[in-house]
């Protein structure tokens, strides 16, 4: 005989199951998908990207509550087109990849704001976990889709370039994140 509480759980689970499968699962097509970032150094903008990352995308604009992004980034794969900077980025002053090889972003929910979809989530970077919100632009394309995501985070919130490099008049405080994902239906 099932206890009352277990029965409640069972009912909840059976109700929730169909909803969990409402958002479609996609695989990310490489090449064509990019994960980039940009900041300023001495008043000039520079652009970088991560060569290695993985994203599990489950999304449906009509079923945001069951949508989910789960992204893992290999921080040592950051490239900005400058050998000095690329040499410094994995070091202990910046990403400290020896201690924290990966960054992880996972959504906690989605909401609408001003006609746009915002993905709220938690970013773990350099051992620090903080809420980060990203703007989502999802365009269905045949059986697949393109997904553009952008947002801004403060590098010092995560201790990236803290210490001697904390001067934001030299290295900008705000890092812009842009991702362009080409999605194929699973």
């Amino acid at each position: 005989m099932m206890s009352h509480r277990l029965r409640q759980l069972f009912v909840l689970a059976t109700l929730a199951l169909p909803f969990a499968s409402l958002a479609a699962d996609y695989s990310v097509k490489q090449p064509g998908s990019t994960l980039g970032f940009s900041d300023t150094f001495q008043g000039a903008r520079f652009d970088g990207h991560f060569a290695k990352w993985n994203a599990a995308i489950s999304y449906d604009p009509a079923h945001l509550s069951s949508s989910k992004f789960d992204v893992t980034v290999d921080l040592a794969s950051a490239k900005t087109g400058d050998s000095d900077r690329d040499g410094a980025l994995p070091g202990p002053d910046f990403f400290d990849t020896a201690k924290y090889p990966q960054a992880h972003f996972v959504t906690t929910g989605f909401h609408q704001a001003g006609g746009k979809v915002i993905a709220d989530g938690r970013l773990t970077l350099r051992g620090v976990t903080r809420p980060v919100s990203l703007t989502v632009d999802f365009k269905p394309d045949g059986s697949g889709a393109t997904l553009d995501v952008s947002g801004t985070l403060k590098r010092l919130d995560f201790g990236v370039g803290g210490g001697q490099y904390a001067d934001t008049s030299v290295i900008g405080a705000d890092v812009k994140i842009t991702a362009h994902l080409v999605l194929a239906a699973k």
Partner: protein
Amino acid sequence: MTFRNDHHQWGAVAKFFHWIIALGILGNGIWGLLMTGMSPSMAKINVYALHKSIGLTVLALVLLRMAWRLGDRAPRDEPMPHWQRWAAHATHVLLYVLIVAIPLSGWWFNSLHGFPLQWFKLFNLPALAAKNEHMAHVAHAVHEYLFWLLVLVLVAHVGAAIKHHVFDRDNVLRRMLPFGRPLPSSSDQGDRS
């Protein structure tokens, strides 16, 4: 002392340009030689930024100075042998050329390396060339060798000024010193037209 030059000495503007540029070259030369040995750090970034800002300032000042020099009549040459007069003028022309060329070569080097160029964190200047790591090495060599050439020319320039002041006891240095008073010169006698 007036702003403009007169027959006997340099005016306040010419003296200001001369000494402020001399100070900039001295400081930036010493910075420049010491900073390349620094290990990568925020301090190094800031020292380089200062070197670039001072270099750009010297470039702007020397261009203004040349414009002023063209518009203002130089004092009469002190009495000296013809070859010395010729050597002095040739040295001055070479100094102007180098003081323009050295900051420009630094700007060129900075551009080839792909670094931003900012003037005292206030505004950015455009790159003179597209990024090219190989050419950057060439530009760095040009920047450094031009500096050593400048040092050689300055030895002649400063040496001549001291020689005129100490041995010839003429007005060559006095008329450029910030608060210098030129001695009554024998060349003035009966030469007031």
